[in-house]
């Protein structure tokens, strides 16, 4: 299947499937590895982190696209993309934190410490830059952002599930903790490479 020849709802589905499986942000593009390894000890916290990232990436996709089109491109300052996007993402995360604290204290307390941590999640910056590099329009950028974030959620929850079981396993002493997690992540990445070519550009 090809994204470019598809239209309407099929195109949306193809972009999401491509972002979740074929171009999984962690297991294929290797972005956002830090939270992937750091917050994947329990499924519960992994889901919290995944949901928070989904929220921020969706908003960041829209805002960075607007900043790129209406500020940077108008003034011919595309080379300031990275620093401008970091500024946007940091401000956005702060704002989202304040907004959630006021409007939804339950969601705020369940996301807890993960919300401010997202500022430094390079997957957010990565998606924003990929959106621009691929020349997506605003709607496509948003869909790609949500799809990528769902891919992050899927990968981190899968790893957390495996790690919870491995805790009880008979792992050799020198491999316990991070070494076996890295090996597991590598094997998951190889498995996800199998999706390559399912959807063409």
């Amino acid at each position: 299947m090809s994204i470019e020849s598809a239209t309407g709802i099929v195109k949306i589905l193809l972009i999401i499937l491509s972002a979740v499986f074929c171009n999984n942000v962690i297991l294929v593009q290797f972005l956002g590895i830090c939270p992937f390894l750091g917050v994947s000890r329990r499924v519960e916290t992994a889901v919290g982190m995944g949901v928070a990232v989904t929220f921020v990436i969706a908003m960041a996709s829209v805002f960075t696209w607007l900043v790129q089109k209406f500020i940077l491109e108008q003034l011919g300052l595309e080379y300031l993309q990275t620093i401008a996007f970091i500024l946007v993402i940091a401000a956005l995360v702060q704002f989202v934190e304040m907004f959630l604290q006021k409007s939804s204290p339950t969601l705020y307390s369940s996301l807890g410490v993960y919300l401010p941590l997202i500022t430094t999640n390079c997957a957010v910056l990565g998606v924003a830059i990929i959106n621009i590099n691929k020349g997506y329009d605003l709607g496509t950028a948003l869909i790609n952002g949500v799809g990528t974030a769902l891919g992050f959620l899927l990968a981190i929850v899968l790893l957390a599930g495996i790690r919870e079981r491995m805790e009880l396993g008979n792992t050799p002493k020198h491999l316990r903790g991070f070494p076996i997690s890295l090996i597991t992540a590598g094997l998951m990445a190889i498995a996800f490479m199998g999706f390559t070519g399912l959807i063409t550009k």
Partner: protein
Amino acid sequence: MNFTDIIVPALILAAMGLIFGLALAFASKKFHVEKDPRIAQVREALPGANCGGCGFAGCDALAGAIVAGQAPVNGCTVGGAASAKKIAEIMGVDTVADEPKVAFVRCQGALGGVKLKADYSGVADCAAAADVAGGPISCRFACLGMGTCERACPFDAIKVKDGLAVVDREKCTGCGVCVSACPRGVIEMIPKKASIGVACRNTDSGKAVREICSRGCIACGICEKKCGSDAIKVEGGISKVNYENCAGCGTSVESCPTKCIVSFSKKPE
């Protein structure tokens, strides 16, 4: 070199930063949430190890619960009397300070050559081993020595040595995480000032204990007779120490024929 090429982008970025900053300042006023200032104060008085020994997710969660009245001011066993006193001052209540406690492993089976009833080669975890026909050791009260407590301890204070969990009394903060982690209930919290402890929980008859382990309490009652201060008694097939009365003379430790009473003033053998 054209300086405007540098200054203009810098000014634009500065302007963007200023706009975001102002927007955030406005948002923080608009979305301001009244928080009890005592939560931050209580959090300061807590140790901050986030061990979870109190039963809450971490020190922040306990601080919130204390201020909300859902947890006692002395809810943190790690901080002990010092932090309980500070928190009580913040909350404006009196506190009865808990005396500091320490974990104590009530078994010396591995030292006493406790008999095995089966070979176990499954998952190296006490909970899993205990699920298989009550564990591979013939004494149903014994420490299984697979280190579930060692992995649970947030302070690196309990270690399995030669098949027996050993508490490092210097490192132990008395949080009690190991007590709930142990599937057999071998670990008990005892007052830190206690000088002796009965390192066995087997309540079976003396003969039955003798058959499986040389370091078990056989409930012979010698310790009770030798003790001059009414601090140790045999009750229900096991010696029990009354820490209030114990003078720490060490007579019971020396008199115990199976050496199941241990002294904390010197290193156990």
